[in-house]
């Protein structure tokens, strides 16, 4: 009897213990699963001419040692698998089933050094030197760098950056576009394949590949390969409707019943009356005619102290800028980290209006037009005003850039497209308008290969 009771107790207690362990236990892999075999290491060392000693000596298991990092990277390249694409005619810059062979072909030797500390790695005649920055990167970043350097062996060089974070850097660091097929494109092609077609990669490696591709598409090409999609929005002459032109089609959106100017914002468009901004719903018609004041604080803050003559939101380099011109003719920028407007600066001329484009110039920026029609480009980095050639034609009500062309709303209420020196009616629009902006659309990217 007593023994039976002990047995029942033991059984019961073990059950509780086991079930509690079950919930805590994770599927487990042997602690040495990440070790490489000596023959694999020897093969990689041979194939790529790895100067093992400079990487910290032969190491098969410990990923803290740089040699093992490099071996891990090569193994990912060797064993990484990609699904077949829908269109097998597209071969890409590097054949996706031959990354290992291609890398091997382009690599005469790899060593670890720190002779050019500001670089991540460099390629000198097929000999790669991985710097301290390389060792700190993620696995994906290291593999991407390796592939990037290998493309340089084939003679592809960079040119200076005309946009993005590396603009103004003395060293040439960009490629003109994706189709050039340079080091940046080959690296990005790899990231894209890992994200879209990768079969046996770690989920975090895949996610990083996707985000790295999207980020770099803006950073390292002079023509960004993935650009935010934009639509044209025109305010009807009677100000009751917004006509939106997106992907070859027109559709109609409600406009809040308030006086004011149609302005572009980073989240769509607003009607701005000098005191407050009222949002235009871009994606749908709400069915409610009431004006809804925009909740974004930097627009709300605008009207708190004084009337505003004009404002504009634009990108320069990698930063967003919001600039306002007060009726006192002073310019101020919104300080995002502080969440408030920066100090006001007096302008040496009276400002008539702001524009994100001037006729004959499709490069984005912010332009101040004086009451005399003089045009100045505002450079936010240096907070300087750079005088531009020509005079502003005040019969141009709005000038915007859309798909590398200037669209101009003239005082006759018609929209024109500038081609060379002449103006042509845009899309044969018969309607008359009182406002024109280009708005960002956040449901897809524009893919621009060249």
């Amino acid at each position: 009897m007593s023994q039976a009771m002990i047995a029942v107790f033991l059984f019961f207690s073990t059950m509780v213990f086991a079930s509690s362990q079950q919930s805590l236990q994770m599927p487990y892999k042997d602690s040495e699963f990440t070790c490489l075999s000596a023959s694999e290491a020897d093969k990689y060392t041979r194939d790529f001419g790895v100067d093992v000693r400079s990487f910290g000596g032969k190491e098969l298991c410990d990923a803290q040692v740089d040699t093992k990092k490099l071996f891990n990277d090569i193994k990912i390249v060797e064993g990484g698998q990609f699904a077949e694409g829908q269109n097998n005619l597209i071969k890409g810059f590097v054949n996706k089933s031959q990354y290992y062979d291609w890398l091997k072909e382009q690599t005469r030797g790899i060593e670890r050094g720190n002779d050019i500390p500001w670089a991540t790695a460099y390629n000198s005649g097929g000999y790669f030197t991985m710097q301290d920055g390389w060792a700190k990167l993620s696995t994906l970043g290291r593999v991407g760098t390796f592939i990037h350097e290998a493309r340089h062996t084939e003679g592809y060089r960079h040119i200076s950056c005309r946009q993005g974070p590396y603009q103004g850097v003395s060293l040439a660091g960009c490629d003109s576009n994706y189709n050039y097929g340079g080091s940046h494109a080959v690296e990005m092609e790899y990231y894209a394949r890992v994200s879209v077609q990768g079969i046996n990669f770690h989920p975090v490696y895949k996610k990083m590949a996707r985000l790295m591709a999207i980020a770099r598409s803006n950073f390292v090409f002079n023509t960004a390969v993935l650009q935010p999609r934009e639509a044209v929005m025109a305010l009807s002459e009677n100000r009751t409707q917004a006509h939106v032109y997106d992907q070859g089609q027109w559709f109609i959106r409600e406009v809040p019943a308030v006086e004011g100017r149609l302005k572009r914002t980073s989240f769509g468009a607003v009607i701005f009356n000098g005191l407050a901004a009222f949002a235009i719903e871009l994606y749908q018609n709400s069915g409610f005619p009431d004006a809804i004041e925009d909740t974004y604080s930097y627009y709300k803050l605008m009207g708190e102290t004084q009337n505003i003559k004009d404002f504009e939101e634009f990108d320069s380099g990698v930063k967003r800028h919001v600039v306002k011109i007060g009726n006192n003719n002073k310019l101020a920028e919104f300080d995002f980290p502080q969440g408030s407007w920066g100090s006001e600066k007096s302008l040496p001329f009276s400002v008539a209006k702001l524009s994100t484009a001037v006729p004959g110039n499709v490069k984005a920026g912010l332009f101040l037009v004086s009451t005399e029609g003089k045009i100045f480009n505002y450079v936010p980095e240096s907070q300087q005003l750079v005088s531009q050639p020509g005079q502003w034609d005040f019969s141009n009500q709005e000038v915007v850039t859309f798909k590398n062309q200037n669209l101009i709303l003239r005082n006759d209420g018609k929209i024109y497209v500038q081609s060379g020196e002449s103006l042509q009616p845009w899309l044969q629009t018969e309607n008359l308008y009182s406002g024109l902006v280009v708005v960002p659309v956040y449901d897809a990217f524009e893919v621009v290969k060249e």
Partner: protein
Amino acid sequence: MKKSYWIFVFVLVAGIFFVEYDLTKRTSRSAFVKKNPARLIHTKLAPATSTETSYQDPTRAGFDFRFQELTNEISQLQDDPEKVEQRMKILAESMTDDDVRQLSEVLTNKKNNGDKRAMAVEILSRNQSNESLKQLENFIRKNESPAEKWSREREFESVLKAQAVEGIAAFPQKDVAISSLTALDQKIEESFLKDRIKRSVASLKNQAPLPEKQDNDALEKLVE
């Protein structure tokens, strides 16, 4: 005789529960700051002693060991990525607020290796507690010093933050995610991150597909 029998049973049951309690504590406790990370790397394991948590028995390993193990897997090919997802989920859901805060330190410390920081943001994103939301917000809001030159390392900060944005967007309460991201947008000046935030918000409001889908649709056009 009968009395000693009951004492024996009591001691036995108490013993079992004590062992269980101790294990539960050990498996959920984190020790990032207390232990030398070098000791946590696989293969060079100290012999188990009766008083220390033995890392040779995986079920008894602490949070930091399991985290490091998951991190090491990023640099390995995976036959079954689904199982990896499972392991990340289990670890993320077992975290205490202390674990979350310590993982946040791992994430923000730029001296840490890239894989470790990427896994930190992944696990924080999957934890989906108020504390992890707060830590992700703090990380995204931390503006980089204007003096810092752009480099691959600086690019990586943007990628990590974009990953954190998606983590917030995946928060189970949509309204919380929208208001968190909208507030962040007003504090951030980096155009790339503002774009990521706007895409997430548009998707949460059913105005656009998930940013992940938008990304892959675009990338597909490059490689297919």
